[in-house]
């Protein structure tokens, strides 16, 4: 075991997001023989983002399985293994490569239980490094979580903190159905408190990370951090923002969002996926279809990704997804009534 000395045996230890996931994977491998990790270069290489790290040395090649570059076959194999008694955790090297495995994810994993009238379950966990900000351009930077949120039978999760990354992964492993975890690549090195040992964070529950009274900002993944940063600036201006980390895209915790907007009367949704037909639309619809509608006192603003592939140039790349300044300007607009 080669964990850094600072993280050993301290209940208040800080781990990076990647280390927190590895911690969860190690717990899962240690406590359940049925758990296997599969993916490209997750063995001695340690995973493209060093998430699996040294696990192959701790648990062996039989359980930390390097697959060929075969996303479709690999995903299908994970489905078959999950159907027949293993608890596979499948790592896609980039979430963009889910496009190669759409058939198995969407037609098989999501639907098998239903098509077979409940005769089977597919307890499959899939991990997807996602999002922009690394200069990897259009085919390695997408945020496709909303695509999969459209598929009944799948659960789609986005952790924003190391604590949630570990707790949601262990919850996904306990879940009898396929769970897709989208991990924003810029979060892998962010640090936060992560308790030792097993704990879970419930799938399908949003978290109010900051309470406020003037406006609700619903955010996912890295946008949670940008929203919290914006909220601090706004507080100086007398705008009291409530920030909700959605945490799960499907099933969506509409209750928390509706209760918040009924209180604040204003809503801004910040997410990295393409703005149109995405998470923002779904969150907005939850409001206008609910009793919170009557409390709405400003138009809802969706801050999503640009209607363009993620570009390479760093300035273009930043402009393609919401930044703190965009959240500030949107919130000021809805609170001051200029929107």
């Amino acid at each position, binding site marked *: 075991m080669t964990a850094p000395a600072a993280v050993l045996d301290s209940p208040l230890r800080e781990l990076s997001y990647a280390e927190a996931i590895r911690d969860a994977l190690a717990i899962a491998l240690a406590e359940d023989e049925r758990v296997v990790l599969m993916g490209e270069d997750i063995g001695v290489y340690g995973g493209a983002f060093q998430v699996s790290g040294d696990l192959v040395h701790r648990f062996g090649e039989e359980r930390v399985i390097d697959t060929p570059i075969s996303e479709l076959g690999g995903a299908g194999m994970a489905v078959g293994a999950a159907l027949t008694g293993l608890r596979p955790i499948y790592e896609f090297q980039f979430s963009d490569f889910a496009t190669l495995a759409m058939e198995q994810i969407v037609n098989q994993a999501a639907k098998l239980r239903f098509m077979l009238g409940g005769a089977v379950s597919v307890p499959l966990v899939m991990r997807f490094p996602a999002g922009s900000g690394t200069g990897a351009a259009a085919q390695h930077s997408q945020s496709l979580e909303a695509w999969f949120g459209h598929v009944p039978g799948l659960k789609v999760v986005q952790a924003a903190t190391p604590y949630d990354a570990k707790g949601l992964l262990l919850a996904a492993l306990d879940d009898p159905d396929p769970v897709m975890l989208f991990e924003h690549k810029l979060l892998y090195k962010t640090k936060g408190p992560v308790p030792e040992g097993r704990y879970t964070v419930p799938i399908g529950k949003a978290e109010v990370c900051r309470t406020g009274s003037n406006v609700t900002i619903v955010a996912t993944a890295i946008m949670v951090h940008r929203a919290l940063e914006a909220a601090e600036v706004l507080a100086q201006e007398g*705008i009291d923002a409530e920030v909700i980390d959605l945490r799960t895209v499907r099933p969506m915790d509409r209750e928390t969002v509706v209760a918040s907007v009924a209180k604040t009367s204003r809503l801004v949704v910040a997410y990295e996926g393409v703005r149109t037909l995405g998470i923002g639309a779904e969150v907005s619809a939850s409001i206008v279809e609910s009793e919170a509608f*009557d409390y709405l*006192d400003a138009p809802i603003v969706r801050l999503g990704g640009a209607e363009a592939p993620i570009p390479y140039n760093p300035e273009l790349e930043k402009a393609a997804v919401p930044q703190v300044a965009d959240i500030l300007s949107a919130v000021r607009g809805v609170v001051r*009534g200029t929107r």
Partner: protein
Amino acid sequence: MPVEVIMPKVDMDMTSGTIAVWHVAEGAEVQSGEPLFDIETDKAAMEVESPASGRLHHVLAEAGSEVAIGKAIAWIYAPGEEVGAPPEGSAQGPAPETPGKAAAGETTAPRPITPAPPAVPDHPAKPRATPAARHLARENALDLAAIAGSGPAGRIARGDVERALRESGEQLPSAASGWQPEGGPLVVHRAGGSTGAPLVMIHGFAADSAGWQKLEACLPTERPVVKIDLPGHGRSPRRPVDSFRSLARMVVEAFDAEGLDGAHLVGHSLGAALALALADVRPRRVASLTMLAPAGLGPEMNGALLSGLARAGRKESLAPWLKQLTAEPQIVTESFVMAAMQARKDPALRAYQQDLAETLFPDSVQSFDLTPALDRLAIPAQVVWGRKDRVFPWKQALQAPGRVALHLLHDTGHMPHLEAPEEVAAVIASRLQAAAGQPVVTPAG
């Protein structure tokens, strides 16, 4: 650099606007957020607020003239800033975060993130209004068409309906006859860590628990912090209060409900008096008492200031009173005033507080005397007072018996926890350290 004033785009399909009237004369002083000029478009008239504080110069567009959107029409110079030739108009690349320019900035350089929503044609018979405004109007049988909207394209927001209700003499549902009595326990905010004896904080009149923020930032973070909102303040219910004694009972009730032991009390002004009353009846569960500018140590007070604060319904009327609370008026910034007004925007809350002021401080006199309680006090106690307090004279501190420590702060007014948070924190911390050496009774479970 003077701040540029531009013709803002205030309507979806607007390309130019006509200046109806300037509210500020050239060379006159203007505060940020005050009305600067009115514009007329073919659909609506709009008031435009000043983007900065200072003096208005180089007014390029007289009333009645039509100006293309985004074009500079005047500049505002900061106090002391030299007024030269009119700067070159720079409306092509306005700073995106400057209020008042945001609208123009967004239209001259469309943001990919938030493209303009599709235009909706106007229906004269169907006023633009938010769902909340419609809901309130419906509940009060009010015709939206008769209400002037303050939002873009004349959109009516909830606030506009509330204003119309006030003007028409109607009562707001939440503020019939000023305020409706409510029940329930006081709201208690818990913060901090879980190590050590708790700090219990009680705010002053017309404030709330958010006012402790600056002081909290200077205090050790590991201890639990329990902040009580007084009735009709912050988020607490508007429970009827007929005397200081009944108010103190509510605070004791809230303290008891928390099940605390060995608590270190910190109170400010009215809250300090309440903390003292609490220590008086719960001596065995209180470890120390710190009173900041306490009420209840003498009859004299600034009644005008207190009722002015309670009454103020707009930030313009609130700001002058707030500035009297501190020794240095610049501590009370624009955003401080905005935040304070935000917390007081509910007219029912203001009505309740006016009534409370009348009950506790009738005819500008402190009706309750806590000096006997101070004399009885057996726990470590200290008083912190600013020598420039304009609400209660600091010399009332001299009523305290010899064993109560006295800390008088220079260049500090009625708000030591805001004006000198580090010094106040140090005074509290020394008491915590002293207490740490003594055995503290903690709950068994």
